[in-house]
């Protein structure tokens, strides 16, 4: 059974089908988009359900020789590292598509690119062949370029080109690293699992150069300081549904790449790099939070808070411990859910008020209880309130890093305080205080928006109370991974 291929290419089928539908039939286009991503979601749900939690080995493997001359194969598989993110990708795309039913400009192209983007993202997380991985990696770039450049905000062209060139630059350097691995493996291979087995053959110097090349590509995606400046611009200019995927999934490709390729294939270089990595992590956490505090625009604030949250992922990875890696993987999932819904909620208010200026509101809590309630829950989750998803993952990241880097961890705790400060200040300005009568006529959330956001909020609560929902899948793989990394 080729479940993974079905998951990856179901959206592609939808995209091709959409090409065949006339422009004017908006409903049909929306229906096909939602249906194909729903099919993808159902398959992913089945994958999640059928996934064997007791093993660290790759599952649902598909391997077909693709370009035999270069030993390249179509090689897919999932383990605990990827399965949760595959499910997250399918879910976030589905809710973003539902949310994006309000798009009226060039609907056909919009959903075509959107589904193509989903193919690319899913492909990245299930590829076990570096060449295939790279193809999917680049495949995400083009749809994203158009999605930002056509349907974005006032600075959309600038944001799109910046995103495109910046990421392309990173991925080209990454390609050099991939090729270096290929030519130094014996026999030459792009197979990630085979490369990881050969890791002991690579001398430290070689490992360091390749690690740095790959790191550049991944760091831009994460984004790790100082390669983060494309992010606020792209997130803010992108339409709501696209921002969700940018923050929810695309950023994770960087962390995922490090965990899937850099750490197992280049363990010596990883160890060598960790003293730098922890510093970058702490900068991401504190700097990201502080810059977020300076924002007047809701969406920018959420965007910068992502830099802070990705810092926790990096913190968790920096100690190379089981606890920390588990925390980092879980943090990817929880950040996707939490920040994804925060972007949707910002979209909700922007669609109504046509402004995202934090100071423009006031007292909305009394008149928009549903919106205020959901926003408060997700903000609390984002600042790490126990009982909601963000707490467990952040705590595990802290716990995992503490033994090796106690002072760095203590310093990065400041990030928690600053995050609490700017989010609570935002809540105070937007929802509390006397009601700003200017917004008296606005309706509370509608069904489309609730259908998009409530599932994410529910999952935020479920994972917060019952983290085993994810950790049981993640842990065996991570335990194994930490074993081979620290070999």
């Amino acid at each position, binding site marked *: 059974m080729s479940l993974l291929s079905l998951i990856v290419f179901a959206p592609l089928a939808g995209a091709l089908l959409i090409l065949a539908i006339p422009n004017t039939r908006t409903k049909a286009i929306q229906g096909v988009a939602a249906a194909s991503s729903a099919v993808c979601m159902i398959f992913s749900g089945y994958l999640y359900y059928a996934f064997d939690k007791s093993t660290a080995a790759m599952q649902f493997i598909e391997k077909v020789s693709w370009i035999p001359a270069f030993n390249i194969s179509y090689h897919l598989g999932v383990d605990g590292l990827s399965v949760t993110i595959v499910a997250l990708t399918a879910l976030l795309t589905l809710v973003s598509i539902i949310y994006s039913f309000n798009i009226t400009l060039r609907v056909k192209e919009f959903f075509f690119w959107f589904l193509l983007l989903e193919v690319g993202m899913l492909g990245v997380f299930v590829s076990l062949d570096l060449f295939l991985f790279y193809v999917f990696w680049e495949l995400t770039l083009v749809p994203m370029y158009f999605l930002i450049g056509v349907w974005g905000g006032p600075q959309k062209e600038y944001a799109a080109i910046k995103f495109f060139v910046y990421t392309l630059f990173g991925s080209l350097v990454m390609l050099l690293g991939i090729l270096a691995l290929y030519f130094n493996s014996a026999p030459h291979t792009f197979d990630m699992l085979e490369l990881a087995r050969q890791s002991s053959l690579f001398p430290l110097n070689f490992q360091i150069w390749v690690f740095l090349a790959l790191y550049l590509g991944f760091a831009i995606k994460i984004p790790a300081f100082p390669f983060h400046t494309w992010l606020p611009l792209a997130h803010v200019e992108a339409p709501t549904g696209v921002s969700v995927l940018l923050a929810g999934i695309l950023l994770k490709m960087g962390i995922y790449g490090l965990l899937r390729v850099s750490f197992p294939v280049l363990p010596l270089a990883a160890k060598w790099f960790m003293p730098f990595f922890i510093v970058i992590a702490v900068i991401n956490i504190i700097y990201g939070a502080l810059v977020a505090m300076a924002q007047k625009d809701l969406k920018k604030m959420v965007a910068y808070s992502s830099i802070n949250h990705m810092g926790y992922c990096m913190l968790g990875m920096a100690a190379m411990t089981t606890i920390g890696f588990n925390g980092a993987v879980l943090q990817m999932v929880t950040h996707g859910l939490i920040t994804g819904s925060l972007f949707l909620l910002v979209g909700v208010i922007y669609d109504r008020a046509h402004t995202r200026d934090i100071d423009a509101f006031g007292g909305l809590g009394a008149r928009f209880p549903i919106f205020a309630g959901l926003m408060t829950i997700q903000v609390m989750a984002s600042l790490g309130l126990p009982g909601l998803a963000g707490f467990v993952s952040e705590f595990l990241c802290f716990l995992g890093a503490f033994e090796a880097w106690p002072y760095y961890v203590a310093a990065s705790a400041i990030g928690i305080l600053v995050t609490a400060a700017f989010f609570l200040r935002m*809540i105070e300005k937007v929802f509390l205080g006397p009601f700003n009568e200017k917004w008296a006529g606005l309706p509370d959330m509608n069904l489309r928006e609730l259908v998009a956001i409530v599932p994410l909020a529910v999952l935020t609560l479920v994972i917060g109370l019952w983290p085993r929902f994810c950790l049981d899948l993640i842990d065996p793989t991570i335990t194994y991974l930490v074993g081979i990394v620290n070999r």
Partner: protein
Amino acid sequence: MLEYVFILPLLSFAVAGVILAFGKWLPGRGASAGIAVAAWGFAQAAILFTKAIQGKLALPYEVSIPWFSVGSTQATLGVYVDGLTIAMLVVVTAVSLLVQIYSIGYMRGDPRFKRYYAYLSLFTASMLGLTISDNMLVFFMCWELVGVCSYLLIGFWFEKPSAAYAGKKAFITTKLGDLGFLVGLLSLFYCTGTFRISEILELAHIGFIPPAAAGAAAILLFLGAVGKSAQFPLLIWLPDAMEGPSPVSALIHAATMVAAGVYMVARLYAVYALSPVALDTVAWTGAITALTAASMALVCFDLKRVLAFSTVSQLGYMMLGLGAGGFTAGMFHLTTHAYFKALLFLAAGSVIHAVHTNDMREMGGLKNKMPVTYITFLLGALALVGIPPFAGFFSKDAVLAAALARNPYLYAVGAVAAAMTAFYMARALVMTFHGEPKDMKKYDHAHESPPVMTGPLILLAAASVVSGWALSRHEIFERLVNFEGVLPFELHHVSHGAVALYAGTVAVLSMGLGAWLYKSKPGIPAMLRGKFAPVAGLLDRRYGLDAFFLKFVALGDRLSSVLFIFDLNFLDAIAIDGWAWLTEKLSRIQRWFDDNVVDAAVDATGTVTLCAGRLARLAQTGIVQNYLLFIAVAVSVFAALAFAG
């Protein structure tokens, strides 16, 4: 019996959800459900307490289920019950129940009545979870959750900007302390390899944890308590927290949540007891808090804020007791204080409900209009001040005795604060209930509160009167809550009788002085205030603590905007866009080079070739004679060369 303890928080949690979702259709808009669960919880706690003091329970009791595991580390959800837990359970459930009953009257007609009860139940659930948790991870989670409930309830009337601000301030100030708690928790985990309280205590008892590490972890954890229990210098949030409804102040900001810090120190007392430095930190922080807060209460005119300062001060006593080695004394004071301070807040709420102001300068003479409120407030005040034989006398005496046994200076600070306590309570009592009404309109409007509010007052008053005496009879409390480990220092021998005699005398004299001054000579306090204006101003400004922290906030804001400018104008504009600009310029240079050098070279090659072609064409005349001539010439030249060679 003990097997069902875990249901307590779960049921409260569930009922919070039920009230939020279905409150509209429940009797009393959900209040009934909350109260029913709280009553059941109190009944359970009371039964546990009775059985425990009869020695019928096998304590400590512990049970847990796995929650999640990563690698070899396992997190659990579980219950740990010992005498300390039971003492706290009784306090939490009793005050929660009475406050919920009282709130029916106090919150009547509030548009968010339903939500209020949901929040109260959520708070109770979190507080119960904190009380019974068997591990520090879940303890920390509940610790944060009670903080959020406090945030939501302080800002319950969020249309008022001051309430919204106060909620935020409380959350962030306590969060500052919680950073210490988090790091302390992490370091405790790496000292012991576990979050389980029983294992941590066991490892501390057998001396497995190095004293230095234990001390560091203990002090870091204590930072969390400094925030949560409003100790110096993080005490600034509690007075502002009075923006919330009065019953909330009684439950959260007097009896339970603010006592969580004290409870935490008691819970991990074996760890604290490994390090004299940690215990001294606790004791001195407590002593300084007791004194500073009491002094601030002396000049305050807001009735609820006087009580808030008083709460801070009494929390300082509890810490003082624990830090000085008086484990039982500190917890005893926590217990009695919960009753009389909840009583005082509820009585103050009853007053505020009647006159619609917090300002004592607009009150006066209310004792005739509100006799029940007056009597109960008076009893609560006597208990707080420590007049024998009311509750506070026993517990405060125990704390002071413990302080004296440890260090005379600690005792001196505590004794001065005790005198201040008596004075400000006399002042509050007189200004509110005695003398002439200051604001006739408000006075005329005032009336006694309904029985649903005075009922809880009477019950709490009864507890305030007898709990100290009852619990110290046959050393009931001491047998329930005591520390069996070894303290890291020697204690001096203290005569309890002498301390009690002194404390009682000071309380009576100081209270008498305060009452006399404010009742018969109101000019003198005003005159003193004028004469010592700088001192009064300093106290009004809370020793500049607020200003200090606001500076801190402003600094953070400035740093954040500087970093943002750096991000935008340096990192992005120069490093990234600058690079793009440079690339573009380079490409222009390359294009010029391309056009003028590379392309020109290509063109030149072409030109040269063409010219060469033209030259060569000259020879291609197409006339056969010419070709023959060339051949002949060539042949002769080659021949000549060959022969010459």
